[in-house]
């Protein structure tokens, strides 16, 4: 039997965010939110372990109430229990304050074997949360995990992939792992599961009355980092010379230019 906690985030689908060059603004209206795609790897790995060993998978997410949809999605994939951690005082948190709330919520869940996170989120891509949660709970942690090959007897063998090698670690449990991107093939949502999740209101909601955390330690107030301003990214000055016409002439022109620049290897 295993007890696995998985962390998911409800993020705007950044693929759908467009830029309006006329007004110079980001068009975010109507941009749908999705479960962070890299977290589906984490959910799938958790479900695989439960299918293999029996037990329970609990999904948690700290987010505004709209993220209930994301938790219903993973209930639809077969997660056993889903908890939304949501309170106005948690808003505006940086990764330290977010990981603090998540770690405290996980503590409330009692004993568990593994906490599994995605590698990073598509909206902030910091990859901070897994290590930070490990730090708060003083647990060992491994990043870039492709698979958990063995589990039991208070230990697990995990395989992780780096750029130039594959490593196997034996890790004491409980532990935190972050899954490598694209390492799993997340199973599809089963409509019957999802429907049941909705009609039975399966997503539990924990606010700060439940967690009872000091308001100075959460949300904007508990965040040591502060965003002071946001500007447009300056463009790199380039020559912007463009040739239109006969391809043969174009190639001659280009080689001449590259020669002048001294960037050809011959």
């Amino acid at each position: 039997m295993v007890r696995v906690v998985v962390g998911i985030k409800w993020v705007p689908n950044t693929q759908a965010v467009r830029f309006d060059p006329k007004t110079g603004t980001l068009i975010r209206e109507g941009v749908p939110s999705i479960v962070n795609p890299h977290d589906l790897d984490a959910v799938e790995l958790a479900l695989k372990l439960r299918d293999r060993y029996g037990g329970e998978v609990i999904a948690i997410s700290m987010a505004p109430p709209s993220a209930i949809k994301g938790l219903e999605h993973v209930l639809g994939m077969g997660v056993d229990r889903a908890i939304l951690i949501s309170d106005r005082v948690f808003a505006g948190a940086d990764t330290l304050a977010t990981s603090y709330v998540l770690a405290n919520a996980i503590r409330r869940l009692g004993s568990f074997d593994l906490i599994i996170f995605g590698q990073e989120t598509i909206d902030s891509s910091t990859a901070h949360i897994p290590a930070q949660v490990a730090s708060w709970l003083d647990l060992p942690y491994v990043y870039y995990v492709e698979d958990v090959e063995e589990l039991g007897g208070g230990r697990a063998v995990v395989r992780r992939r780096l750029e130039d090698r594959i490593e196997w670690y034996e890790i004491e449990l409980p532990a935190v792992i972050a899954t490598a991107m694209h390492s799993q093939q997340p199973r599809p949502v089963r409509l019957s599961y999802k429907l049941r999740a909705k009609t039975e209101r399966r997503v539990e909601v924990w606010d700060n009355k439940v967690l009872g955390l000091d308001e100075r330690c959460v949300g904007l107030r508990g965040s040591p980092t502060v965003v002071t301003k946001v500007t447009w990214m300056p463009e790199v000055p380039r020559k912007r010379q463009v040739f239109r016409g006969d391809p043969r002439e174009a190639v001659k022109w280009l080689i001449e230019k590259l020669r002048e620049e001294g960037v050809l290897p011959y």
Partner: protein
Amino acid sequence: MAAVECEKLCPEWGCTDPSEYRGVWVVGELDEEAGTISEYSLQLLTPARMVADKRGTWVEGVLLGYDRGALERAAREMIYHGADRVRVLYSERLKPYNAEVYAKAIARTAERYKPEVVFFAATMRGRELAPYVANTLRTGITADCTQFDVDKDGNLLMIRPPFAAILLAYIKTPNRRPQMATARPNVFPTPPRDESRRGEVVWEDESLLEGIRPRARLLKVRRLERRETPIEKAEYVVAGGRGVGTPEGFRMLEELANLLGGVVAGSRKAVDLGLIPHEKQVGQTGKSVRAKLYIAVGISGAAQHVIGIRECRVVVAINKDPEAPIFRHADYGIVADWKDVVPLLIQELRKLAAERGRR
């Protein structure tokens, strides 16, 4: 910092007094097998020097490892590239590399010497170490920065493109020390190497490791064969996008890259289409390249793509759409179907290469 402000902060974070913190740290990354320091760590000495000069303080390298010779050489390299002092933590107990052990040891070292700034390269290793160190120190951290500066109050400004690569966010950690950040590889130039530079190498004592026990044990390692230069290290990069469209197209790009002694890369669309593996993706969610010559073929030039080519010396674009944004980000553009241009380009370069061979 005034005591009043401290009371407003989370008591569990504790209170740090910025005036007690001095020096800018660069945590160096060693390639244990090659026994060398990562180029990306050396690149960080550029912003570290700038910040230290603005703050009127010094630059320190921090190195951990179990190979005395390699550590010594790496420490010297850091000094030749601008570090004033390098703190070396050498111990058999640091073998093999272990994220939790290294992160805790770095945090201990920072607690002892109180640096005002700690930089890591945002490599795979840097990204797993830095947030654990930051949390152990109960301080903030900003990921994947592309620029740094110092504001009028002496705070470090950490600048990164959030969300969509069109914007830059300026982030600071006003009430906590150290101020921590990881920096994106290949956006800062490696400072010039000067063997006449002198600096101090301090061998730290092993007490910094007391009570730190690895709870993850490395069982085995399998090296992956890597025949070519990774794109982030290549001098010549030929990148293809959705416009190239097919594996045959990419084989032609390969031919062009080979003629230049370079490598093929791609846009995210090319990765999504399975034309190229993710580790060869250029851009925000891929790599930054710093090629002498970057040739973009059938790539539209989305912000998230071109953010990865900012450091390239000369950018060439071949695209059949004259309105494609890539032309704004290129030095030389050819409006044409790549199928008409690339074969000719290969032909001409082959001639040039042969001529040089004859000479």
